[in-house]
């Protein structure tokens, strides 16, 4: 059943040039769209009466082994009513800063998924209200782990990684939202307030 999903033709009719190309791999239809048109295309796919992709299965990114190929951000869409699947991809050039529109206003489930792609690949999702690391701690300074140029065991030596983990000062464990709540109630110790005012949350010593 490697037939191309009808959504591709509808997308081309609707968006024309911004739908770059499409492909079929192992029975799934893949549509490549221009990075600028991401939010508009996905909003249309969600709200259009005969598309109705109301279920966002997954948001992820793929970094290929040869560095010239751009980094791909992938949205897996599914229409529960029509029992149809569609994989929407966009390619981001690695030389420019990686940024793409957030779809949090379309699907609430994208919140943590986008934060994880930001944490692992460094793709900034514009419009995401609370974009910070989710799997690594927020002041993690070794870069983006799932990039192919990131070594398996990390850049720093094991001793340095242990030292950074053990000596991080207390506010590194809290997000800025909680620190503001504590600050609003005057619960922050004085030395922590000075460090936070300077904006320095990394590990000391």
């Amino acid at each position, binding site marked *: 059943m490697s037939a191309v999903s009808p959504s591709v033709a509808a997308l081309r009719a609707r968006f024309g040039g911004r739908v770059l190309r499409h492909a079929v791999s192992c029975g799934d239809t893949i549509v490549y769209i221009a990075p600028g048109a991401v939010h508009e295309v996905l909003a249309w796919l969600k709200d259009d009466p005969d598309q109705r992709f109301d279920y966002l299965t997954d948001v992820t990114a793929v970094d290929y*082994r040869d560095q010239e190929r751009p980094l791909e951000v992938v949205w897996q869409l599914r229409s529960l009513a029509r029992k149809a699947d569609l994989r929407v991809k966009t390619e981001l050039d690695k030389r420019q800063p990686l940024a793409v529109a957030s779809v949090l206003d379309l699907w609430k489930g994208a919140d943590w998924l986008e934060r994880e792609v930001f944490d692992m690949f460094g793709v900034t999702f514009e419009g995401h209200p609370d974009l910070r690391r989710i799997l*690594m*701690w927020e002041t993690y300074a*070794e870069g983006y*782990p799932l990039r*192919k140029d*990131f*070594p*398996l*065991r*990390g850049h720093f*030596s*094991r*001793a*340095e*990684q*242990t*030292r*950074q*983990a*053990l*000596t*991080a000062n207390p506010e590194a*464990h809290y997000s800025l939202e909680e620190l503001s709540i504590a600050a609003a109630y005057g619960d922050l110790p004085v030395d922590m307030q000075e460090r936070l005012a300077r904006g320095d949350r990394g590990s000391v*010593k």
Partner: protein
Amino acid sequence: MGLTLPEGGAGTEVSTLSPNWVTTRLDVISNWGRANSLWPMPFGTACCAIEFMASAASRFDLARFGMERMSFSPRQADVLICAGRLPFKLAPVIRKIWDQMPQPKWAISMGACASSGGIFDTYTMVQGIDTIIPVDVYVPGCPPRPEGLIYGIQLLQKKIKGESFLDADLRTEQLLRPDGLFLPAERIDEVSEPFGNSVHQTRSA
């Protein structure tokens, strides 16, 4: 009644009394009491925690060894059982919990991942919790069968029965060194060196 910090430092010096009949009898009684009522602090993170729950359940009953009472707060805990892998984000947590446990305290590193990083020779995994806290018994296995864990607990009980009051450095608090590490940096790097087939893991293609 706030406990104040004695200026003499971490531990009070035990009087250097030569071991005679009285002290050894005292040792035997207190060690018997300690060994047979170890209250575990189940620091359960991953798969080994499920095997730990299975060994605490009715079939492999830990209560037969006096470990009926799981104490989830370090204040009443005797033995910290690190059941599962320990990422760097969790290292300060286990270090703080270990420091907050009153003496006498022991540590069991359950499973290959806790003892040596296991198959996770990655950027985020502590390669063995003995680089963070002093460990008394290492239980091999992934996950160790409940019988394996119980054998490890029996080894710990044998070790406790061999201890003595007069051994001064047994119960002193081993705090972090001034540079924030538990072991010297080169010792940690040497221990965390990849070995076995994880050496071949560098070839990504």
